[in-house]
């Protein structure tokens, strides 16, 4: 395969990464524009707007991780994904746990 012939293989993988970078860039621009446009126009109910803007941000993060960094490619693909999932779990515990505690404290102080 291409891995044995470095001279042949390099332009091929380079081309793939170039195409995925350009595609990721275009998708990111579109997602960013939609998010700012929705907020600027107050296009829907406030609760829906919060939800949709968050979803757009999560999609853009995934696009950048997989189109710019191409995490799933190469020999370390599985390890990259495994460490990413572990980090996401740690972040969720820290963020959700802290916010839960702080809002409960706030509630107990008021009531």
């Amino acid at each position, binding site marked *: 395969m291409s*891995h044995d012939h*470095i001279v042949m*293989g*390099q*332009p091929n*993988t*380079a*081309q793939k*990464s*170039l195409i995925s*970078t*350009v595609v990721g*860039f275009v998708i*990111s*621009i579109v997602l*960013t*524009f939609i*998010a*700012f446009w929705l*907020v*600027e126009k*107050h296009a829907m109910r*406030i609760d829906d*707007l*919060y939800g949709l*803007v*968050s979803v*757009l*941000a999560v999609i*853009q*993060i995934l696009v*950048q*991780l997989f189109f*710019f*960094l191409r995490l799933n490619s*190469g*020999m*370390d693909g599985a*390890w*990259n994904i495994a*460490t*990413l999932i572990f*980090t996401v779990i*740690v*972040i969720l515990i*820290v*963020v959700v746990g*802290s*916010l839960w505690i*702080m809002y409960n404290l706030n509630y107990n102080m008021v009531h």
Partner: protein
Amino acid sequence: MSSQTATHQHGINSISTFGFWIFVLSDFILFATLFTSYVVLSPHTYGSIGVRQTAGLNYVFVQALLMLAACLTYGFGIFSMHRNQKGITQFWLLVTFLFGLGFTLMQWHVFSTLYSAGYTWHDSAFLSIFYTLLAAHWFHVIVGLLWTAIIFIQLFLQPLTTTMKTRLTCLGIFWVFLNIIWVVIFTVVYLMGAI
């Protein structure tokens, strides 16, 4: 660990890039704690300004475009690196540097305008965490700029060796990291603040 597993098929040390990826993940956790603090503290403005008075949405949108453009041109640089075109790689590093510099100056303008108007981090819990979060990202961008400049100069002194390609790949991961943090900042701070 044999040398075959350590050296990637593109002439890049994949153990080093994986190690740098682990560092970037730990930096994500650092920013997660700052974002949590922001969400908890941002309603407490104590009569001082809120997030709507810090920077307009159009201004933040331009900053987002600059960060994305930097990632795109860095991707062009990585493409040239894979084809062993040193001069073109340096050209794209320079373009990335200029986009990053534009972002940095715009962010400095936000800080200096607020500060000279008397809205410092002493004013309120919101302003404390606003300066902390934004400056933490800003500082990371400045480190990215210095790193880009250093690699640009190093490429005058040596060819595209495995070491240089590994450094370029790590810096690419770092630019995407900076971009992702900015996506979360414009969503959580500016867009949700403007809703």
